[in-house]
């Protein structure tokens, strides 16, 4: 319990710090925002009036506190351009991003596990070497490299899937899957390689342990030992690497959403940065920070489930 409290506290601190830094940085750059909104013909009085209305003339810490009090109550302010509440815009876009991330992680874990078990079952075989080579290739293919290739091969040359577009999951699950599979794959590519490399090393090391030999000597089947004895300790490091890679995954998701023109949170972030929509940028950054912290928290707690030795506070 104490461990959970510690982790939650640390997470909250990170969120506060991140939003504050974001606010300060954005305020530093916001000098010309009111002028930008009004256009070149604005008089200084007009600019001052608009700055006062947007609260840009007050000290930074006051702006931040006002924003924070609102944020805690679920009010992230309104967009400077569309005049829509920021929280609403974000919530409307969560399902797409969530589905993509979930599918991406699922594909990565499943494929990497299969690859790793094949590799570890026949170490140094041609199959193992082929899978290693494949991993090296996949590791060097970030979203903006893998994505266009997937579009080119599956949508244009083969014509199996539609190129761009989106159908919400709630409307038509099958159509939705057709649009979601390529972006999810593009997100998964690098993760597959990273996880495969790690799991393979891990499984081979574990399989060399005495308790595996003992289990085999007692007459247990290969497959049984592989899953029952070898895989559980390895799943531990699988989760560690996933946790380390969450940051990259979130970044990669932004690029993939833009590449496939998907109506997700990442696309929203990029648009609001290009238009310098401060409340929107801050809202989305906060949202991503919260997701990041929550995911790390979940990973920490999962350790406890998978490995009983960690169920006490430890300094990492």
């Amino acid at each position, binding site marked *: 319990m104490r461990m959970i409290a510690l982790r939650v506290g640390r997470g909250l601190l990170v969120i506060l*710090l*991140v939003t504050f830094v974001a606010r300060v*940085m*954005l305020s*530093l*750059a916001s000098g010309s925002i009111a002028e930008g909104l009004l256009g070149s013909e604005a008089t200084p009085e007009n600019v001052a009036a608009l700055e006062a209305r947007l609260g840009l003339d007050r000290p930074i810490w006051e702006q931040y506190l006002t924003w924070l009090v609102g944020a805690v109550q679920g009010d992230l302010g309104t967009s400077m351009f569309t005049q829509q509440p920021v929280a609403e815009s974000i919530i409307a876009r969560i399902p797409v991003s969530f589905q993509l991330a979930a599918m991406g992680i699922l594909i990565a874990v499943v494929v990497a596990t299969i690859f790793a078990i094949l590799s570890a*079952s*026949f*170490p*140094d*075989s041609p199959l*193992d*070497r082929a899978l*290693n*080579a494949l991993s*090296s290739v996949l*590791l*060097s*293919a*970030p*979203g*903006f*490299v893998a994505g*266009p290739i997937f*579009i*080119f091969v599956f949508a*244009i040359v083969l014509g199996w899937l539609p*190129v761009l577009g989106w159908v919400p999951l709630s409307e038509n699950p099958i159509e939705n899957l057709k649009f979601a599979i390529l972006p999810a794959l593009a997100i998964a590519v690098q993760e597959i390689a990273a996880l495969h490399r*790690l799991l*393979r*090393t*891990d499984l*081979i*090391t574990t*399989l*060399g*342990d*005495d308790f595996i*030999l003992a289990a*085999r000597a007692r007459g247990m089947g*290969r497959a049984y030992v592989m899953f029952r004895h070898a895989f559980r300790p390895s799943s531990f*490091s699988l989760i560690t*690497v996933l946790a380390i890679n*969450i*940051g*990259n995954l*979130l*970044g990669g998701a*932004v*690029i993939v959403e*833009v*590449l496939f023109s998907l109506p997700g949170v990442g696309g929203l*972030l*990029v648009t609001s*940065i*290009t238009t310098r929509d401060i409340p929107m*940028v801050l809202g989305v*950054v906060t949202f991503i*920070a919260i997701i*990041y912290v929550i995911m790390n928290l979940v990973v920490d707690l999962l350790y406890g489930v998978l490995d009983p030795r960690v169920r006490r506070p430890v300094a990492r």
Partner: protein
Amino acid sequence: MSITTRVPTIRNRRTKLSGFVGTAPAEPRVPDGRTRTSIVVWLSLGWLALIALAAVVAPFLPFLPQPATPVGMPRLAPALGSFELLLGTDTIGRSIMTRILYGAQISLTVAVVAGAFAFTVGTFFGMLAGYFRSLTDGIIALITDVMLAFPPLILLLAIASLVTPDVRTVTIGLGIVGIPTFVRLARANAMSWGSREFVRAARNMGAGHPRILFREIMPNVIPPVASYLPIVMASMIVAEGGLSFLGLGVPPPTPSWGGMISEGKSIIAQAPHIVLIPITFIFLTIFSLNQVGDRLRARFDKSAS
């Protein structure tokens, strides 16, 4: 992930367990498949040398048109015959060959400068933290933790929202984002070397902190830490490409690989080469850096990754 020492072990092929247990139990051998691929590493080095050379000499080649000048019809497919049309033309008729080479300049400059910056600053502070421990370590560890507590690309995007991005800001941003990796590596290495006998001997002979740090510890810390440089540079090229792709990196008139992918993506059905060529170049460069980095790490980083 541990890089196990490549101790030759006797594989017992006669038992039914071979291939499964297959290794001496005391020292499980993890075949890493890299020992056989040194030809790939040499090819990678060759590619990196080639692309670096091309990027450096590009402005001095008389037969290469300026990157902003159209040289023919838009969307010309790659064709043999003239060097400037070898890779075809882009959406407004500019030579893709020229733009690739000038783009290589941007990517490589950013990666090299930001990588060197992150390496120097990170190694220095990491060594301080690992050598002095206690308070110094506490402060430096706290700062790195905060820096690592945030997705790097999102941080770079946040920076891009404040300042109008250009080569300099992108380089500085990437350099800062890259620091924590080197701090951690240098700290761990400095810690393990700092407690060795020769360091104590030097101290007993009256050597001061600076001398021990830079003459005794640094020469041992540099190789393993530097072996991560190619991999970090690869990730910087990825990040720079991602930012340019989103239109938040090096601004458009300047050619960049990420920007070229972004420009061509909407007409991938009509003129796929506009997208596929920059993708090929960026992929080969990242792949080469990763290969060389893997090799260097296997050679110099005995501890772990």
